[in-house]
């Protein structure tokens, strides 16, 4: 039997749709591949001039000043200071919100709180940076700790912390809700209170989800750019004092991108080396989170 014209058209349409969808998927793959290609080729050019060891373990970062120095440790230190500080703030709040949402909140409260948290995640990060600069530093940090620089790591850590609370809360909530109801019932039937069920059954059972949430949030905090650039300043130094101006890897990239550094110079290539390092660190954390999550999924099989 011959297919009718209509059938033929339908088949052609299906083919067209397939091609379109494949093109969409291809675009993101090609984009990622070219980003990696540009990053690595420029970073390779950079490492023709500077040894990777001097880059990774040098303690002075001054690519734009004479004498030039390309030790990236101060940038890593600034980044870890901000991201670590952000975690100190975001983990307790995010975890608490996650437990509240999954174990305590009645459905009606949950249906209000969860969208609010998601709105928090949708605020442009530059707004957070501005908030740190004009509110947190002058109104909170400087009165509490006189002598705080106007640009400082602490204010950046606080706003980045607030920024990643929704990520942690939402992922923890998902992890806790994935804990089977039968486990909770078993615990309640043993005369457990709601708090005991939350902290001694649900939390341990969802722990790998929590760890994955924290790792993802940490990766996000490391990659955060705008808020940190505004709040933390542009003074690369190896310090653990959160009240002074520092520079993170991301804000260094912003600084050079906005400046008038000519293309092709070693100063210009530094941002690709730093970018490559940032990419590798974030990638590592994402893979780590995936691994932890995978183990978590197997827990009740």
């Amino acid at each position, binding site marked *: 039997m011959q297919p009718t014209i209509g059938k033929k058209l339908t088949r052609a349409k299906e083919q067209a749709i397939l091609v379109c969808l494949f093109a969409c998927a291809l675009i993101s793959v090609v984009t990622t591949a070219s980003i990696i290609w540009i990053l690595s080729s420029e970073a390779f050019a950079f490492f023709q001039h500077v040894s990777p060891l001097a880059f990774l373990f040098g303690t002075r970062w001054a690519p734009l000043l004479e004498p030039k120095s390309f030790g990236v440790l101060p940038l890593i230190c600034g980044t870890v200071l901000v991201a670590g500080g952000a975690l100190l703030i975001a983990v307790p709040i995010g975890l608490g919100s996650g437990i509240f949402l999954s174990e305590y909140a*009645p*459905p009606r409260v949950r249906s209000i709180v969860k969208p609010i948290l998601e709105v928090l995640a949708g605020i442009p990060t530059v707004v957070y940076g501005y908030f740190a600069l004009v509110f947190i530093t002058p109104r909170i940090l400087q009165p509490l700790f006189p002598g705080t620089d106007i640009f400082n790591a602490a204010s950046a850590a606080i706003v980045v912390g607030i920024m990643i609370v929704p990520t942690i809360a939402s992922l923890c909530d998902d992890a806790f809700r994935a804990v*089977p109801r*039968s*486990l909770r*019932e*078993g*615990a*309640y*039937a*043993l*005369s*457990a*209170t709601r708090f*005991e069920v939350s902290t*001694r*059954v649900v939390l*341990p*059972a969802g722990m790998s989800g929590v760890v994955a949430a924290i790792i993802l949030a940490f990766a996000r905090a490391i990659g955060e750019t705008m808020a940190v650039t505004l709040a933390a300043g542009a003074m690369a130094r190896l310090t653990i004092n959160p009240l002074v101006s520092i520079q993170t890897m991301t804000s260094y990239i912003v600084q050079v991108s906005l400046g008038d550094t000519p293309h092709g110079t070693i100063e210009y290539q530094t941002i690709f080396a730093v970018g490559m390092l940032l990419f590798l660190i974030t990638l590592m954390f994402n893979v780590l989170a995936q691994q932890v999550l995978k183990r978590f999924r197997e*827990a*009740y099989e």
Partner: protein
Amino acid sequence: MVSQMQSDKLESPRQGFDTPRFDPDVLPPLSPALETVIRAETVTIRYGDFAAVRDVSLKIPDHHVTAIIGPSGCGKSTFLRAINRMNDFIPQMSISGSLLYRGENIYRTRCDPVDLRRRIGMVFQKPNPFPKTIFKNVAWGAAINGYRGNIDDLVEKSLRQAAIWDEVKDKLHQSAFALSGGQQQRLCIARAIALQPDVLLMDEPCSALDPIATALIEDLIDQLKKNFTVVLVTHNMQQAARVSNFTAFMYMGELIEFDKTDTIFTKPNKQRTQDYITGRFG
């Protein structure tokens, strides 16, 4: 998880006390000498508008096995879960009538469900051990309830009572998930009796198990009635006939008949019971 509890009869101060009068409608053959542990009077349980249990009145006697049988959806599990207030977690659940545990109204506001569940333990349909070691599964309930005695002894005693000690004594610190389904269920029984409850509610405890594991649990239930009052929900009539002393037959949310197990299975009073046990429906 909010529960909206409304209780018509619960506010009256007399309601909380069991009167020892013999009520021929509720339990004809039960000798008044048997002490009542759970007493239900016109208990109706609704989920929203749907009445899952309607006007159920019965008395569950001390240190015996009482089985509740009936086709799926007849309200037997709902009734069982009302006894230790596990239905509290279901939104829209409401209960009326009175449900007394040793004379205390279970649904009175003064009654703390956490305390109640300390006295009335439960074993579920599917084995649900915690993702912890065998030892910790048994010790957990005692630990959160502030048990001060020797925890090793308690764990051993509970596992022995649940007839699983010999199988697990060499791997107490391995994960409970390494056990078979039947072993997990006996572990859950051990976990429940480690709290030394008064009543043990069992919600179709063998429905997920093979016949050999089921036989083991049935033997165990027979042992358990020495120390506990057992209320067993089952859709397996043979099981009810084998292990229980009293049997309640529920149908469409109503209690059709409650009597000695022998009577229910040999000469039931109601035609519907007769039809059900002879397999004409359900």
